[in-house]
């Protein structure tokens, strides 16, 4: 199996503060990999580094075709098939639901396909269909999270990065979303890098699990194995 994303010795931080220390990570194509870890472990920082919002101080980040992501500007990420659902419901509150969604597919040349996907999104996220014309700021927390996810999917990414998608979502919706991620993986070969606080569900849905602690990877194993390892869970995940 080829790797959709490979990090080698990636270090990054904010100013003088180093958050990530020599991360080595390989995400297999068409798999769901989850990164778990305590608050402040550096999970969000990891995603920010991959998407180019933060420049790594060392190491390389490559995608499937060997393309070095560290040289790709943020605005070209989607063109390389990388989409991010940022932490904290990155909804553009001044735009309507519809506009937010359309924005996600805007970079694509074929309008038709984008329109179809749009209809698909409304089917996927029913509550959004009811609020099509509502401005982003009117939405409830969970509605916003759905919108952010839908928008990222509009870009038809090959590598989807999710930062705590379950935050503030009803269990039913969380389950739906995770289920959907699996379906997308199976149907379209989508690769997912999932960051979750909700470790149990995350490990349940993922193929591979990575534990991040204080900016270092302390374990990287098949998800099922991780879920079984009580010692590790107690030490780093607290249950």
């Amino acid at each position: 199996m080829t790797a959709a994303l490979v990090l080698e010795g990636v270090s990054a931080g904010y100013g003088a503060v180093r958050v990530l220390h020599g991360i080595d990570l390989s995400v297999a194509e068409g798999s769901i990999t989850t990164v778990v870890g305590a608050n402040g472990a550096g999970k969000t920082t990891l995603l920010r580094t991959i998407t180019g919002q933060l420049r790594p101080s060392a190491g390389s980040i490559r995608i499937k075709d060997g393309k070095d992501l560290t040289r790709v500007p943020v605005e070209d990420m989607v063109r390389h098939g990388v989409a991010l659902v940022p932490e904290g419901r990155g909804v553009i509150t001044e735009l309507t639901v519809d506009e937010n969604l359309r924005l996600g597919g805007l970079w694509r040349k074929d309008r038709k396909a984008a329109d179809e996907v749009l209809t698909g999104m409304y089917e996927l996220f029913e509550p959004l269909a009811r609020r099509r014309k509502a401005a982003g700021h009117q939405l409830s927390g969970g509605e916003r999270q759905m919108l952010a996810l839908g928008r990222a999917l509009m870009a038809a990414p090959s590598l989807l990065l999710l930062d705590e998608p379950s935050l503030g979502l009803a269990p039913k919706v969380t389950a739906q979303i995770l289920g959907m991620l699996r379906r997308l993986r199976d149907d379209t070969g989508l690769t997912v890098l999932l960051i979750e606080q909700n470790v149990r569900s995350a490990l349940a849905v993922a193929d591979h699990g990575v534990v991040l602690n204080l900016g270092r990877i302390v374990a990287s194993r098949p998800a099922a194995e991780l879920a079984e390892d009580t010692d590790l869970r107690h030490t780093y995940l607290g249950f």
Partner: protein
Amino acid sequence: MSVTKRYGFAGAAMVLLIGLTFVIPSFSSYQLATACAYLCGIAGLTLLTGAGGQLSLGQAALMAAGAYSYALTANTMADAGTEGPLLLLVPLAAAVIGAAVLGLVIGLAAGRLHGPYLAGFTMALVVALPAVTSTFSSVLGGDQGLWITVEKRPASLRGIVSNEAWQAWLAVVCSVLVLTLLANLLHGRFGRHLRAVRDNPVAAALAGINPARTKVTAFVISSAAAGMGGGLLAYTTQSAGPGAYSLVFSLFLLMAAVVGGIGSLTGAVWGAVLLVALPHLISTATSRLELSTDLAQRLDGNLAVAIFGLVLVLVVLLAPQGIQGLLVRAGRRLGQARSVSVPPQSAKSAPSPASSTPTRLSARHEPEQLPATPKGQ
């Protein structure tokens, strides 16, 4: 700074500046007096805009309210035959009260506005000032404004200090007083409430702070400070007229506050100094240039304005935290250099990025939209 220290510092500053008037030429004393008057207005903006997040372009109108209150009170008292210290103190008090009352009226309306809407409203206010003075020209003296009968320096001082030095004394005492009171407010309960309302009005309300009242109060306080500034200007220049409190002047006050560093009252001091010294320095320097007649005519005045504009742009680009921010950073670097052997701060305290002043006036980046802000809604 503890309260005692603050009072000590204020006292020392007063003594020092008054002492200074004995060594500097009288024109410099006049400049000192104007700088102090400006300082009152700028410090008011620091509180309103810096800590309160309300962008006002109308500070000049409130200074004008102070100046006119001074003028009307002083002239009425003088006509009634009052003399002595009363003729100085009562009009000054009137200046503060007059501006505060106007500030209350405006604040009641402005308290509901935010960002550019408040800016637009306050700008319209300054622009309307000349119209107001000519509409009520029988009282306010129209375009030319009012002459003021002022109480000159006490007879006992006449031989010792120049009129300009005396004006500087008065301005120094009043502005240090204003600054101290503002510092008390900003470092106390009110400052906390003001910043809370600025940062998150809903959360502030839920914490028991009345956002509307806090905003209006900030407006009133800022206006009162401006009123003191206007009163001092009225005293030193013996006049109160609309031309002196134009939109341009209002914008200059704001520039001074920002360029000095809107995050702190010390920044306001730098701003006031700059506002007085910079144009002076630039025009002195440009007038030194030896130029051909033709060139001189093109550059006359324009060169000074161009340099001033350029300086503003450069300061914003190179020192966005203003002069005070620059000094603080330099100080910190110095401190760091000195204490290399001391281990970095305890691991517990999180890294603090260069402290910023979160004034959300132009809503350039709503924090919510920044992926860097975790989990906010």
